[in-house]
Each structure stands twice: as structure tokens, then as C-alpha cells.
């Protein structure tokens, strides 16, 4: 086992010379989590808007459910997707287990409740302001949702960024359905877990630093979006 100083130096070295393994792992991580986040937004934005604006039986229960699912442990999501995709499962025939597609599916499932719940809140707040105006203009439910989603676009960006942060940082789901296979399904978090357990701290630390920088960047973007949304509101 190396000393901490050596490990840090080696980690910086890996980043500085764009080590091929490190770049591959970071690339796959970004690809999987970004795809999952985009899919989750495609589902979560309209779902959140429907929960905020729609009037239908079961809306309250569905809202509670979505809010509860926000805190779902990633390993549980991984387990559920594993059962679906395993050879005996209902989607076993697709042969997706231990592929990036399975990881995308699991992370999408993990992120949808986050995006939907945040979207519901954002759209409901905006609706409180727009409701009477849109009604006086004869807007139906569909037009109202489209208007609210578009005018909440910057605030909704923060919902997407929060989802992306969660996807990039989770280990449990991708570990179970991806299997952490070298060059195939190894992403930042699963690689860090494995390398650390093997005492290979350089790569783990290097990936950890990249993950932290990404997380900081996501937060900075979210802050910018929040400020932009405030400016749009009453500038």
C-alpha cells in the first residue's frame, strides 16, 4: 500500500496525462448518467407538470408516492431493475443485464422521481402566479402545462442538474445491473469502490477528484440557473 502523498501524486499524474483507463471510465460515467438524466427529464418534466396542474383522482397519492421515491436507495432500484432484466425476469429476453443500457435504465428509474418531484414544486409555484391569467385567456390544461414548463425552464434546469448529480454519485444501482466489468460497464463510482478495496489508491483518488470537480460544476451551474430564474421572474 502506497503512502498518501505518493497516491495523490500518482492520481494527479493520471489526470494530467489523461490516462486511458481513467478517461474511458469517466467517459462511460458521463455517457450513462447524462443519457439517464435526459430520459428522466423527458419523463419527469411532463409528469411533474401533470401532478402540479392536473385534476384527477389519485393525484394526491401519486404525489406522495413520487416524493417518497425520491429517497429510494440506489441498491433497491438496482435490485428491481436486476429482477426485471435477469434471464428469468419479464424483460430477460432483451439480454440487457450487465450492459450500459441496463445502467441507463436503472439510473433513469432512480432520477425520474427526483426530477418529477422538483418539477411539480416549480410548476405549482409558477401556476399560483399564472393561473388566473392563463384561465382568462382560455388556456386548457395542455396549453397551461406547456406555458408553465417553458416559463419555468431555468428553474427546471436545476431539477435536471440535481438528477444528474444523483446519477453520477450513486454506486448501488450501476454496480448491481452493470456488474462493474472492466472496459464494459465500469464507471467512476464502481471503479473507486473496487480500486479502493484492492488498495489501488491512485486510480480511485484520481476518479474521486474528477467526480468531485463534476459535482462542484453541477452545483455551480444550478446556482447560475437559480439566479437566472430569479432575474427572469421580476427583472
Amino acid at each position, binding site marked *: 500500500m502506497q503512502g498518501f502523498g505518493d497516491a495523490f501524486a500518482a492520481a494527479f499524474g493520471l489526470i494530467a496525462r489523461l490516462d486511458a483507463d481513467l478517461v474511458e471510465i469517466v467517459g462511460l460515467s458521463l455517457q450513462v448518467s447524462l443519457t439517464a438524466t435526459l430520459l428522466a427529464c423527458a419523463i419527469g418534466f411532463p409528469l411533474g407538470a401533470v401532478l402540479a396542474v392536473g385534476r384527477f383522482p389519485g393525484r394526491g397519492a401519486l404525489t406522495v408516492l413520487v416524493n417518497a421515491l425520491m429517497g429510494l436507495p440506489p441498491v433497491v432500484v438496482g435490485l428491481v431493475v436486476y429482477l426485471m432484466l435477469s434471464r428469468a425476469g419479464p424483460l430477460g429476453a432483451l439480454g440487457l443485464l450487465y450492459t450500459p443500457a441496463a445502467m441507463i435504465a436503472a439510473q433513469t428509474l432512480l432520477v425520474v422521481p427526483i426530477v418529477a418531484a422538483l418539477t411539480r414544486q416549480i410548476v405549482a409555484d409558477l401556476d399560483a402566479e*399564472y393561473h*388566473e391569467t*392563463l384561465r*382568462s*385567456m*382560455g388556456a386548457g390544461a395542455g*396549453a397551461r402545462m406547456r406555458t408553465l414548463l417553458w416559463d419555468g425552464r431555468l428553474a427546471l434546469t436545476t431539477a435536471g442538474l440535481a438528477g444528474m448529480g444523483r446519477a453520477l454519485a450513486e454506486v448501488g444501482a450501476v454496480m448491481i445491473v452493470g456488474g462493474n466489468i472492466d472496459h464494459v460497464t465500469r464507471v467512476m463510482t464502481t471503479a473507486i469502490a473496487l480500486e479502493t478495496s484492492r488498495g489501488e489508491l491512485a486510480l480511485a483518488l484520481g476518479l474521486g477528484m474528477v467526480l468531485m470537480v463534476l459535482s462542484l460544476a453541477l452545483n455551480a451551474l444550478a446556482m447560475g440557473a437559480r439566479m437566472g430564474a430569479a432575474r*427572469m*421572474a421580476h427583472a
Partner: protein
Amino acid sequence: MLRLVASGPGPDAAMRLEGVALRRGGRRVLDGLDLAVPSGGITAIMGPNGAGKSLALRVMAGLVRPDEGAAIPGEGLSGPRDIALVFQKPVLLRRSVRANLRHALALYGVPRRARRDRLGELLDFGRLAAIADSPARALSGGEQQRVAMVRALAARPRLLLLDEPTASLDPQATAAIEALIADTAAAGTAVVLVTHDRGQAGRLADHVCFLHKGALAESAPAGPFLLAPKSPEAQAYFAGRLLL
């Protein structure tokens, strides 16, 4: 501009309220309100704060269903395309002026091919061309009120309901809004104007309805009414004595 209106607007009314009652917070805030809006010209609605003027406009716009009585639109008028309402504090979308108007044109179902020309007309009419690409909510109060008015006119409504459109504006912005209101009425749209400003009612209105405690206290041609109202409520209001 001046238009003579018979003191009891006839069957060609743009809107009639008949015995409208509305409960809010355990009180009858509209209490048997009868009121007719002529199908042309400008009708001012006056009355103290809390008299029910804003609620009466919401009832006319179909946004609030009265507990008793009815709001009866004039012949051939129905829905937001024909009856447009501008709230006292208009809410503009988080978009440019142009995009706000485009949004309204789409909502009102103006055919796509007609939207571009209509948009140009609206920008001209509201003297908004110079600020068409500014974010609407960044504009001054007067400009925002102009955008809100022009937005309400997007689908050429037959009846335009305005709730204290100049309440918080400076004289110059007020003059601009008053010019728009006069132009709108001159183009044949019936206008209902809630105002506390006697001078404004004198400059614009053909007819005045005076509300007190959710009911009509007086309805009269603007000239005589503003000179010497007949009802004790209106007399007390103009003398600064009427409180609700």
C-alpha cells in the same frame, strides 16, 4: 368619440349582470348586482374599495360563477376570445414582449398564417415596436400595462374589461393608456373601465355605473353623473365621506 347611450342600456348590451350574488369569506360581497354594459363605447365602473368592482369584472369574464343570478353575454359573445380581461396587476410571461403576444395569439387560436401580420398590428397599436424584443417583465409599469392591454386585444375581443389600468402609473404613462383605451373603443370594442379617477372617467367614459356594497347604486350617462351624481352613495363618495 362621444357616443350617446340611452340611460338604461337596451337589449343590444355587450354584457348583462342580473341579480348577481357572490359570497366570499361569509359575506355577500356581490349582493343582487344588476348591470348592463352597452355594446359600444366606454362604461366606467366606480365605487369605493371593496365595493365589488373587481369581482364584478371576473364574473363578466366568466372566471367566477355567481352563487345567484347570472352574467349574460351579449348576442354572439362567448368565451375569452370575445370577452377579454386585464387584471389590475397584470401577469406577463417570462418572455419577450413579442413572445408574450405570440403566445396569446396561439392560445386564442388565431390561425398560424395570420399571426405574423396580427403581431405587427398589435405592436404598432400599442406603440411597442421599439421594445418588442425586451423581456416583458423588465419593462416599466406603464409599458407592462400597455403590453397586457394589447395582449388582451390579440383576438379582437368585442368586450374589453379593464381593472384600474392606470392605478399606479405616472401621468405620462396614464395618458398613453388612456389613448389606447380611446382607440380601442373607437375601433368598435365595448370597454368596461374600473377607475377611481373622476377626471379619467370624464375624459373617457360615456356611461358610469356606481357600485356600493356589491350592488348598483347609480347608473347614468357620464357627463351628468360626474357633475352631480343623484344617489346619496355616489354623492358621499365624491365628498370623501363614503366608507364601506
